């Protein structure tokens, strides 16, 4: 129940008509096979699963399920291709990767539409953020292929061999780019498994890989669920595992490879602290909150899901935030005006709803903006939990949805302590116009990525990764090459 004084005097009156992105130019098959050794092969056990559109839970296509036997075939293909691929001059390897980047750019709109259809994120985001970042990631690493000695002065870098890569459902194509590009540039061959709920853009990427002329076996794409991932992790001829996903699964993988020669990089969960000081540019900070937690429906490992606002400006910030939330449009991912799309799956929605219940049970004050949620599909309104504390479960555990917890703080040392008081360490945000304060905080916060006066900014040239239980290893930048090489 909203109090009378909270009534929004600045309510937007002009309703935008439906502005649906056209889909008649895209091509999606009814059934997708596995992509192994340069061709599309049926899964050995002939099992398929459905992939759906989370905005209405309707089936889009049947997807092959790779079992242990298929994983074995794929790893063998990757191993066979390794010698040829790794001994190609770097400049030629780079050219293949440049081709992939250009092909993605040429087919950008189709990728964006399919990403939104399959994953639920707004078309505006897949069009303006996901797909361009993915293309740029390939473009960036293509340029490293013949320059590796500069990234490792005084050492002769060599590829690891066959790498197994397991990626999540929140940025399906972008995560595929983050994994494939550096691995290819450094001369490795790959077996990649996209997430169970979002296989389509990876399969469209397989088409591009095929069209680029990449030698067969260099990239193999196996669709499947957790089982398939486990088979890849446990396969004896895989030299390295790269995983992005939950901390729980990350720990499982880490245990599974203990004692083996397998290397790993893990990019896991987070509970990012977003800190607003009284001397921040408040209006931009409020926009930063929106970008931190409502962007991509909050399905972001580095989301700023814990808001810390200095008590002296807390009321102002919350008021402005609520006003801003009133203009967020929740709806059809394919409508160009949608700000917040569908929750990726029924499973994830129930996880989020469960946390909201926990928050209410813990006595936290909830606020949700008024929005008309569609009847079909998986939806969650942008949610705030106000006046929470470190001891509340919803402040400690990763929710992975558009749910923000709000705590006040009084001093710099207090907020640093509270921000670091978590097993996670992926990201943090600092909002202040005082430069010295920024540098002081960036030096003290225990997180792998720190955004000052901005949030959720990604670039192929910028290294990304976590401290503590948010994982280890970096993706992006010169440092993103490290996980894929060994020294003689």
């Amino acid at each position: 129940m909203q109090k009378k004084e909270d009534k929004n005097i600045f309510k937007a009156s002009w309703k935008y008509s439906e502005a649906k992105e056209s889909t008649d130019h895209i091509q999606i098959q009814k059934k997708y096979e596995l992509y192994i050794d340069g061709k599309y092969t049926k899964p050995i056990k002939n099992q398929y699963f459905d992939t759906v559109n989370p905005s209405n839970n309707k089936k889009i296509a049947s997807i092959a399920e790779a079992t242990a036997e298929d994983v074995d075939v794929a790893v063998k293909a990757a191993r066979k291709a390794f010698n040829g691929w790794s001994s190609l001059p770097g400049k030629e390897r780079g050219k293949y990767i440049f081709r992939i980047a250009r092909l993605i750019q040429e087919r950008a709109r189709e990728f964006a539409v399919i990403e939104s259809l399959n994953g639920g994120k707004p078309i505006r985001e897949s069009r303006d953020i996901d797909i361009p970042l993915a293309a740029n990631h390939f473009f960036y690493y293509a340029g490293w292929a013949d320059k590796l000695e500069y990234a490792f002065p005084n050492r002769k870098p060599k590829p690891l061999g066959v790498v197994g890569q397991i990626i999540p459902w929140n940025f399906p194509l972008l995560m595929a780019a983050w994994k494939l590009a550096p691995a290819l540039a450094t001369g490795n061959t790959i077996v990649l498994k996209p997430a169970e709920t979002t296989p389509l853009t990876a399969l469209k990427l397989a088409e591009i890989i095929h069209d680029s002329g990449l030698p067969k076996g260099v990239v193999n794409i196996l669709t499947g669920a957790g089982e398939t991932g486990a088979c890849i992790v446990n396969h004896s001829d895989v030299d390295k595992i790269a995983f992005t996903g939950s901390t729980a699964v990350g720990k499982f993988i880490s245990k599974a490879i203990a004692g083996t020669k397998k290397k790993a990089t893990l990019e896991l969960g987070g509970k990012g602290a977003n800190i607003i000081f009284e001397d921040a540019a408040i209006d931009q900070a409020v926009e930063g909150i929106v970008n931190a937690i409502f962007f991509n429906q909050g399905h972001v490992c580095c989301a700023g899901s814990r808001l810390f606002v200095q008590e002296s400006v807390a009321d102002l910030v919350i008021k402005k935030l609520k006003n801003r939330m009133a203009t967020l449009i929740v709806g059809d991912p394919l409508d160009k005006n949608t700000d917040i799309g569908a929750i990726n799956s029924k499973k994830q929605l129930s996880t989020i709803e469960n946390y909201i219940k926990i928050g209410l049970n813990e006595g936290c004050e909830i606020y949700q903006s008024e929005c008309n949620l569609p009847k079909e599909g998986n939806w969650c309104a942008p949610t705030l939990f106000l006046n929470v504390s470190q001891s509340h479960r919803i402040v400690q555990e990763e929710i992975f949805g558009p749910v923000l917890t709000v705590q006040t703080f009084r001093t710099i040392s207090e907020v640093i302590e509270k921000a670091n008081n978590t097993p996670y360490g992926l990201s943090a945000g600092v909002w202040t116009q005082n430069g010295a304060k920024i540098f002081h905080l960036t030096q003290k916060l225990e997180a792998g990525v720190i955004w000052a006066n901005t949030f959720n900014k990604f670039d192929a040239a910028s290294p990304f990764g976590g401290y503590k239980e948010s994982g280890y290893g970096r993706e992006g930048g010169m440092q993103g090459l490290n996980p894929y090489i060994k020294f003689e």
Partner: protein
Amino acid sequence: MSRLDINKTYKLYIGGKFPRTESGRYYTVKNSKGNLVANMCLASRKDFRNAVVSARKAQVAWANTSALNKGQILYRIAEMLEGRKEQFINELILQGESAKSAKLEVNTSIDRLVYFAGWSDKYQQFFSTVNTVSSLHFNFSNLEPVGVISILASENFSLLGLISLIAPAIVGGNTVIVLASESKPLSAISLAEVINSSDVPSGVVNILTGKKSELFSQMASHLDVNSIIYCGNDENIIKSIGELASENIKRTVFYEKNDWNNEFYESPYLIEKTQELKTTWHPTGI
């Protein structure tokens, strides 16, 4: 009767346009049989002066273009050059190269463009530093382009030598005025056409044809030029350039060897030679 060809007119490339030399003068390029290949513009100091104005005008915006964009533009030049490979090979053959070496030079030129395109968003990471000073300051050093560079290209390797200097200079955010090989100028103007169709903003690359001996002193003394690169081993010219450049402490770079087909020139140090280093301090205490 067999069809008559339309012969190409070779003009200068200044400010994104193809003007003739304001002096109206020309010089001839002949093939090994003594037949006319083309009349080239004999550029004057006024042409050079105009080119500097264009280059200066374009420099700040070009430097502020994102590294990603610059890399993609250089890659685009490679795409365009690849598409017109045959024309460039033929031009080199016309100017006295063997078919084999012409082909190798063109292929190497394309690959070298891709090479430098790939450095655009990486060379900063390689050359910049965070410096651990003793006081409570965050201290970092990074590169910035020197600005406007005049380039006296090498006589041989008339395509590859050109690209090996233009690419690193512009990927580093500089704008250039290039005087092409005097004896083999054709590739330079055809390259100008390729550059012009590759989303390179006007004024970033300016190409002149003419006599080194006539133009080098202006190229070395012009006070609104920040750096000069000379490819050659004429000791008198080298000395002259050194003296003239001293007027505004121009940064001078000399390439005496000019064995441009050597892989040695595929190096980020060619970019570094076109850069300044800036160090910034900021307090970190509260």
